[in-house]
């Protein structure tokens, strides 16, 4: 049964790899919070599990009251720890609650990511909102509906089964008597009933009866976005607030030896803080804070010994990064090679053996809104407004930093300006809190673009070593695949190969690295799908036919065949010229499947690749919000173009050399190709998240199209090669 699968899925820890992503889905703080919510009602949320104690990973341990509140006007306030950063959970979780409460979405008021008000739904990452938080909200809402129905039944002294719920009104089918949620909200019984724990086995609405889910509900606060009324973390202003700037080292690993603060301290209304390596200035404007910081920065004396994290030598540059990673490759702590059959034997027996190495550069998420926070201390309690993927992490980290109980920290994440896996850490909040504590006033810290490019973290670089063996019939019989440094997401091959050895190895990363949209799947799928193309060519087989011949997974087959059909693959492949190529790739990750066909043009005089068209098919189970899913897939496609063709961190001597949109080239309007997206609605499995996997087919499809046109196989990402240029 679908719902059983959903429940089991919720209990699984979510995938973690090179970035630490603790896998708690629900945990709660001990104290009782009393807060004013949207409609002005006083609500009391009694929460059960203390911080730092054992965490529940399902919705089982929270009460209905911790998840939602019934207001006297008949609206419902729903609470979630998830964060809106453009990927769409505000609409989707609103739909989830509306679906099970049998109300229209405009009756739901969703409170997100405020540690004083919401349960801990885990980090917003890993496409987990759809498989974990949507079911948790649905179960809470369905339980609430059942409890309300039961209260009505008790009032009327009938059995609940005699009642219908529609649009927030409970009707006795026999007597036609009605009572609304608004009526019930006035009764004292609701508060008592909502103290009940949400059971895990509550029945939720099956897909074929969905009314709110499955529709293109717009983001509920989108009007505030187009009018500028929405306040992002960097827009928060508190009374008497100062603006802070933080002193940054000149290179990674540099330590501050001495600094003179007096000139800045003499500036009017300027607060200067030094605490060990931390130096910051706060002033009534960011302009004056920057001037104060300039004054202290020019007196700073630094010990600059850039070295790698393992101390294996000087900090390598981006030019030598791949040899560095390879030299320092080691088995990762959480990964062991997985094997099937005997790869060595099969390679020895193979008719053809290919051995190739792929390289993937460090890139950055560069969300439009860099890290930002406002911190305010009141009576020893700290409140922060900040852009982070997990408010409870900010709360926990701040409590630890300032040695105060977590109950004295409140972290609020206003809907923020993008993340893409790049905002798992809360540096700005800590910096703001340090300055605010010293200043005795609220302080805002807004990172500059250069700070974000340098001091946030990066998608890992990778060296991926591939060996493949074909038998005399051109069938793939051996597959040996080792990713050094990037991680294990989507590292397992979906292809049917008798002998495989697959390994995710660690290394010594000179840059701070972490999650990115679909994690290492962007690297692993680039290498795998490029190498599959190489093997297809070696076998003398069409790339589509070669994949299908080795593919049992019916979901991947479906998206591959769908996209090939829409793209008219066989005919387009025949029209390939040295200046015009087509390529395809597919993949699976996070329980969703994707396939893409692309057409590229190659300017052989300039050696430049231009993507003309991307046709992509994607399937992630029952579609919960078609318009939002389309946005996510379109966004993944274009974001994928950037990483495929141009994006790359350049560094030397522990310094980032291209910490600007001038040197780090993200996609712009001129890069937008013709895009055809085909969303497949598969209703007999649970819904999976759709904001990540659609990115993983883009880069390999482009590399394969370039090869088809030019015969030049480019095994690096970004996909560039001097051989494309013919004078």
């Amino acid at each position: 049964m679908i719902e059983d699968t959903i429940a089991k899925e919720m209990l699984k820890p979510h995938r973690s790899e090179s970035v630490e992503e603790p896998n708690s889905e629900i945990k709660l703080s001990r104290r009782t919070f009393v807060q004013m919510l949207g409609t002005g009602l006083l609500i009391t949320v009694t929460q059960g599990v203390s911080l730092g104690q054992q965490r529940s990973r399902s919705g089982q341990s929270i009460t209905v009251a911790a998840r939602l509140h019934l207001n006297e006007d008949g609206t419902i306030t729903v609470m979630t720890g998830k964060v809106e950063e453009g990927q769409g959970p505000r609409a989707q979780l609103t739909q989830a609650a509306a679906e099970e409460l049998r109300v229209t979405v405009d009756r739901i008021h969703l409170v997100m990511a405020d540690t004083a008000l919401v349960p801990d739904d885990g980090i917003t990452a890993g496409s987990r909102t759809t498989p974990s938080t949507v079911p948790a909200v649905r179960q809470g809402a369905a339980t609430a509906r059942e409890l309300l129905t039961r209260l009505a039944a008790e009032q009327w002294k009938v059995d609940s089964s005699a009642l219908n719920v529609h649009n927030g009104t409970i009707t006795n089918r026999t007597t036609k008597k009605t009572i609304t949620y608004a009526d019930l909200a006035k009764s004292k019984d609701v508060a008592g009933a909502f103290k009940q724990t949400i059971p895990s086995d509550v029945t939720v609405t099956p897909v074929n009866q969905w009314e709110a889910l499955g529709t293109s509900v717009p983001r509920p606060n989108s009007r505030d976005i187009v009018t500028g009324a929405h306040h992002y973390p960097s827009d928060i202003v508190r009374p008497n607030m100062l603006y802070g700037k933080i002193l940054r080292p000149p290179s990674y690993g540099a330590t501050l030896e001495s600094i003179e603060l007096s000139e800045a301290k003499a500036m009017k209304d300027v607060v200067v803080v030094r605490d060990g390596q931390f130096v910051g200035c706060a002033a009534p404007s960011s302009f004056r804070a920057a001037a104060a910081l300039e004054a202290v920065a020019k007196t700073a004396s630094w010990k600059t010994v850039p070295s790698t994290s393992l101390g294996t030598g000087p900090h390598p540059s981006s030019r030598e990064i791949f040899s560095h990673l390879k030299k320092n490759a080691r088995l990762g702590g959480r990964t062991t090679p997985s094997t099937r059959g005997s790869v060595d034997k099969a390679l020895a027996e193979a008719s053809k053996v290919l051995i190739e190495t792929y390289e993937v550069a460090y890139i950055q998420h560069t969300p439009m809104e860099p890290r930002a926070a406002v911190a305010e201390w009141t009576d020893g309690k700290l409140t922060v407004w900040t852009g982070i993927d997990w408010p409870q992490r900010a709360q926990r980290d701040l409590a630890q930093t300032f040695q105060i109980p977590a109950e004295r920290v409140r972290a609020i994440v206003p809907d923020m300006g993008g993340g893409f896996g790049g905002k798992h850490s809360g540096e700005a909040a800590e910096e703001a809190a340090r300055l605010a504590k010293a200043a005795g006033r609220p302080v805002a810290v807004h990172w500059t673009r250069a700070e974000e490019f340098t001091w946030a973290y990066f998608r890992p670089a990778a060296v991926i070593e591939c060996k493949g063996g074909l038998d005399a019939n051109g069938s793939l019989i051996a597959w040996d695949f080792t990713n050094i440094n990037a991680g294990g997401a989507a590292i397992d091959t979906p292809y049917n190969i008798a002998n495989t050895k697959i390994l995710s190895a660690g290394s010594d990363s000179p840059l701070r690295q972490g999650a990115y949209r679909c994690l290492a799947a962007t690297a692993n799928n680039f290498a795998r799908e490029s190498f599959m193309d190489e093997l297809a060519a070696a076998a003398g087989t069409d790339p589509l036919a070669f994949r299908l011949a080795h593919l049992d997974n019916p979901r991947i087959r479906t998206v591959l065949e769908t996209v090939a059909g829409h793209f008219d693959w066989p005919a387009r492949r025949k029209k390939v010229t040295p200046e015009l190529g087509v390529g395809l790739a597919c993949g699976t990750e996070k329980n969703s499947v994707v396939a893409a066909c692309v057409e590229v043009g190659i300017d052989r005089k300039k050696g430049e690749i231009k993507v003309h068209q991307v046709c992509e098919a994607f399937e992630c189970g029952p579609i919960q919000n078609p318009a939002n899913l389309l946005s996510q897939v379109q966004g993944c496609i274009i974001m994928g173009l950037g990483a495929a063709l141009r994006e790359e961190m350049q560094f030397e001597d522990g310094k980032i050399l291209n910490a600007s949109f001038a040197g780090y080239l993200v996609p712009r309007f001129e890069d937008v190709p013709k895009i055809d997206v085909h969303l497949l609605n598969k209703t007999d499995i649970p819904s999976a998240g759709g904001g990540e996997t659609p990115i993983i087919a883009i880069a390999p499809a482009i590399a394969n199209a370039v090869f088809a046109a030019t015969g030049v196989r480019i095994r690096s990402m970004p996909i560039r090669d001097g051989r494309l240029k013919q004078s």
Partner: protein
Amino acid sequence: MHIGPVNLWFDGGSIMDVTVTLTVNGIERTITTHPARPLLDVLREELHLTGAKYGCGEGRCGACTVLMDGRQTLSCVTPVAMADKKTITTIEGLARGDSLHPVQQAFLDEGAIQCGYCTPGMILSTVALLKNSPQPTDEQITEWMNGNICRCNGYTKILNAIRRAATQITEVKIS
């Protein structure tokens, strides 16, 4: 007078503050501040109009776009002294009461919003575009809008919103 890039104006306080008068969203505002301070900072920190966003601080992403005397202007690289006696429109000043500007409405209608952080800049750039070219070709749209970055990469729906806005503004004028 020539005013160079903002970062050349860090001077240790030797330059005196100036008083500038701006008309922002129809309201005259007088501010005494450093002449090189970015217009973006003044709007956000003095006037608390936070609709214009910081994205890069060097005029390369368009998040800070406002209209100055009706022209598309990157407020993060515009020293406030250059805005003296100018009329500024920020995203907060675009709607007329409850009635959204057709470009705002088009972005809503097309769902051309993901995180929305670039949206104010996108909308104001579009307003300026349609003032110059009421019925732009796709090539004109791309060329004009190319300075505005959307990192959610929602360009496809933004393009649809711009095309829709062009149609609707034209229709309004005809009727």
